[in-house]
């Protein structure tokens, strides 16, 4: 009987001793539930606890406290070789003394699968990763991308409940990585196995995942879909880590359920936005504004745009601009040595230099309320 979730963490904590005699909390009271067939990513900078979380699922580490549940069964100290999960390692960890075929057959031999079936399933696995003719080679004779596929085939041939992938594309070059991202995603949809993916590459996580857990310092700060964590981050770290953003700081003046007004520090101006996370009137907050969501207009009305009302209207001066094709990246000076980045999409094709902003231009800056997120300052 299948349980509701493929993997559950109940208040999982992992503490490592350090050689100096102190301790390090790698994973700090993490609770989460991963559904069957989901492509779930752990995203965060190095040392955030994402790999340790994965290793606790694989059984290479045991939680200091809390429960790791796979397919409804509490794993406790179950060793890796008795868990219904398989891992694709960052270093691939291929057996260099075996052929590609033997590498993939290894897991099936451990299960005592009959020889005929091993031959058939390994053949299928090789076809699946498009290495049909490579079975008799040694892993060292293959390219990095091919080795990566062998590692994938070796894990998938076991038909695990859950496939764990620890930065599997980290060693590949950019172009190959993008190809493999799409292939992995297609493969996951094809085999329907739950994929749990660890990466520090936000684009990778956003491209492939159904849901993402953004981790920092052992904590899962936010768990949600790509749109949710980008458009509605729940704290300063997530807004900062996913994509680019401008931060202004201030103090909350008024607060309702769906609207908050902040008095910006050093500008003596109010800005309204959407409240995210836990906020209190009078508390210091961070206001996050994505550069592509800032709208600009010339101060002299040279280019008139529909700037609804006067709310969230700031003024500033262009410091530098960089034309990068799809858009022009503008750095603005808001006064009081506050800077803001704005990306203006180049939606009209023209060679006229007046159509683009240039250094020294005085501009009006409009930030729609729904594009203004008010977040608690991190208290980590």
């Amino acid at each position, binding site marked *: 009987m299948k349980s509701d979730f493929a993997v559950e963490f109940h208040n999982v904590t992992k503490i490592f001793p350090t050689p100096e005699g102190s301790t390090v909390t790698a994973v700090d009271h993490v609770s989460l539930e991963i559904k069957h067939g989901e492509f779930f990513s752990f995203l965060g900078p190095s040392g955030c606890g994402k790999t340790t979380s994965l290793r606790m699922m694989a059984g290479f580490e045991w939680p200091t406290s809390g429960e790791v549940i796979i397919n409804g069964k509490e794993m406790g100290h179950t*060793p890796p*070789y008795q868990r219904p999960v398989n891992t694709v390692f960052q270093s691939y960890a291929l057996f260099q*003394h075996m052929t590609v075929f033997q590498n993939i057959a290894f897991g099936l031999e451990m299960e005592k699968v009959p020889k005929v079936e091993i031959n058939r399933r390994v053949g299928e696995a090789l076809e699946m990763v498009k290495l049909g003719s490579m079975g008799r080679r040694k892993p060292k004779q293959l390219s990095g991308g091919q080795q990566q596929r062998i590692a994938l085939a070796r894990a998938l041939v076991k038909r695990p409940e859950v496939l764990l992938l620890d930065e599997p594309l980290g060693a590949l070059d950019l172009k190959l990585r993008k190809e493999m991202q799409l292939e992995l995603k297609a493969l996951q949809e094809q085999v329907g196995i739950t994929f749990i993916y660890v990466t520090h590459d936000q684009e990778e996580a956003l491209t492939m995942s159904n849901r993402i857990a953004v981790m920092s310092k052992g904590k899962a700060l936010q768990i949600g879909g790509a749109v949710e964590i980008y458009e509605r981050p729940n704290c300063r770290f997530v807004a900062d880590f996913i994509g680019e953003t401008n931060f202004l700081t201030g103090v909350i003046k008024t607060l309702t359920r769906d609207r908050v007004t902040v008095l910006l520090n050093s500008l003596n101006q109010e800005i309204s936005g959407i409240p995210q996370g836990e906020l209190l009137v009078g508390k210091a907050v961070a206001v996050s504004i994505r550069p592509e969501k800032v709208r600009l207009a010339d101060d002299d009305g040279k280019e008139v745009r529909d700037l609804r009302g006067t709310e969230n209207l700031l003024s500033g001066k262009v410091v530098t601009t960089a034309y990068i094709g799809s858009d022009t990246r503008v750095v603005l000076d808001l006064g009081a040595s506050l800077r803001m980045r704005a990306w203006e999409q180049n939606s009209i094709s023209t060679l006229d230099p007046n159509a683009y902003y240039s250094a020294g231009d005085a501009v009006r800056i409009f930030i729609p309320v729904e594009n203004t997120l008010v977040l608690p300052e991190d208290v980590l």
Partner: protein
Amino acid sequence: MTSAQESGRPAKQSLVRTLRENRVVQGLLLIAPADIYLVLLVVLPLLLVAGLSFLSRGEYGQIVFKFNPGNYARLFDAIYGKIMMFSIGVGVGTTVLCLLIGYPVAYYLARASARTRSLLLFLILLPFWTNFIIRIYAWMMILRSGGFLDSILMGLHITKGPLNILYTPTAVMIGMVYEFLPFMVLPLYTSLEKVENSLLEAAADLGAPPWRAFLRVTLPLSVPGMIAGTILTFIPAMGMFVVSNLLGGAKTILIGNVIQNQFLTARDWPFGAAASMVLMLLTMVFTLYYTRKAGFGEELLI
């Protein structure tokens, strides 16, 4: 002016250029010190011994320049055949025992923390600080009747009387294994240390309990170390005479003792030389056959 300067020292320039650009000259110069050393101290003596093995012994033990292939014929005597077989047995036995004892040690070393590891490596090399012969005398003290070993075993009431190990083949094996163990442990350690932990994790992940992971992953990957250690142990073990001399007494004679006796006691240098040549040939055939089958352990270098 420039052209005058250039033509002024053409010889020097071309020498510098040759040194800089000619790879063959570079190679010859780089291996020259080792070459000179080997030719003077290995190749020449070897040729001398080879030549000597076809000469005759004079009445007073001097060398007589008379061609005499009989030195080799004498080696087919049953007594020498027996000694040769026994020597091979001791050589193989030493190698196998070193492998069996050394493997767990090397495995532990490879898995130990960096600090423990350097301490243990230091301890393994420590005996080399003391002269080999003195260490073998120490073993005589340990193994002789009523020696350290006997007093400990009898003190603990494990044995009733002295074991009388000294001057037996057992004592020789103990001394040989003691002497050659580091030569087995070090190459084994080098190859085991290269077995990454992630490979064992991968094996476990794919369903292999620890012992199967060992048999299927660790053991095959340590084969280069086993081969290197075997060669480093077997070849010198075949020529060993000090250990058998001191610990084996008159009863345990190896081919090494035969050769030593011919040179020092019997003063029959031509016969000793012939025995040396045969020993060398046999060891070479043995090693060649072995390395042909298993390789030189050259993977260790990668």
